[in-house]
């Protein structure tokens, strides 16, 4: 049986699922017995529902600043 990450991978890699309508995708997920969190996320397009299942953890955007390494090495130190 597929879990949520398996299902997300399947949706992401299948042309029909990736661009299915919300109704179509919800039907597929219900048939596959997807978790409530994933179904809610798919219906709303809001990934925050998945925090119920995976917890919420602050993720920084890696490599957010480059300018200080470009023209001069230590402009602000």
């Amino acid at each position, binding site marked *: 049986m597929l879990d949520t990450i398996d299902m997300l*991978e399947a949706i*992401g890699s299948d042309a029909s699922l990736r661009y299915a309508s919300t109704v179509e995708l919800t039907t597929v997920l219900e048939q596959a017995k997807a978790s409530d969190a994933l179904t809610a996320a798919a219906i709303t397009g809001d990934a925050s529902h998945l925090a119920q299942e*995976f917890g919420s953890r602050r993720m920084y955007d890696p490599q957010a*600043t*480059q*300018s*200080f390494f470009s023209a001069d090495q230590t402009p602000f130190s």
Partner: protein
Amino acid sequence: MLLSQNFAYYHKMNTPLVAPPKDTRQGSLAVVGMGMTLGSHLTPLSRSHIEQADVIFAGLSDNIVEQWLQRMNADVRSLQPYYKEGKSRRKTYEEWVDLMMTEVRAGKRVCGVFYGHPGIFAWSPHKVIEVARAEGFQAHMEPGISAEDCLYADLGIDPGTVGCQHFEAGQILFYERRIDPSGYLVLWQVGLVGDRSLARFTTSGAYRQVLVDVLSKDYPLDHEIILYRAVTLPIQKPRIRRIALRDLPFVDVPTEETVILPPAATLKPNHEIRERLAALDKLEKEASVA
């Protein structure tokens, strides 16, 4: 053995091909991109690097994508804990290089996995490859699908039509840059524009007002700009907002969002060069007749 001989050898064997044995004493480094969207963008080659590595270092922006990565290799070490509010990102990036090199020097096959493309807006991946090669280790980068790639697809922009400049937004403030308003302008990391401490992860609307003031030299304040965020999970839709340039200080701009300024001027013909090219055409035509 020549490459062509290698292929002949593999053809004889019938597929599947068997990779040559690795020198297990020598460390190596591959830095790969995870792409932006879970399940959609990871290339077969990058996945193979991940699966074959002894240790993975992960610089990803999504917790669920990181958990997906953990299914591909038993030893995934997140680089996220090295970030800290108030700590210089420069120090964090240098620590990442040290972490990866420590394992390469220990003879491990190391794979650095970064979201999007590992070499775009990414100091550590380029640096660690430079260090590894300088020490005699095999090291290379595999490209990934970046936020920039997604932007072109989701917004229907072709950078070839009128050209496209990309800047980290801070560079527009810290340095005197020449902006060409007849092409697209893409500004990255607007959410923390103007941060000189390297230790903050967001800046206020007052900093974006400084950016707007600088941009207003080349763009009217009512110019429509686009705020864009690519999809990281395949159940999401891209976030696309269109606002007037003057309103940028007053909307929330998370760090993962990118600001696009469409052209505000038409391309100006360069008559002098066109005449010069026409003269060249004429000369070449005359030479071919004679």
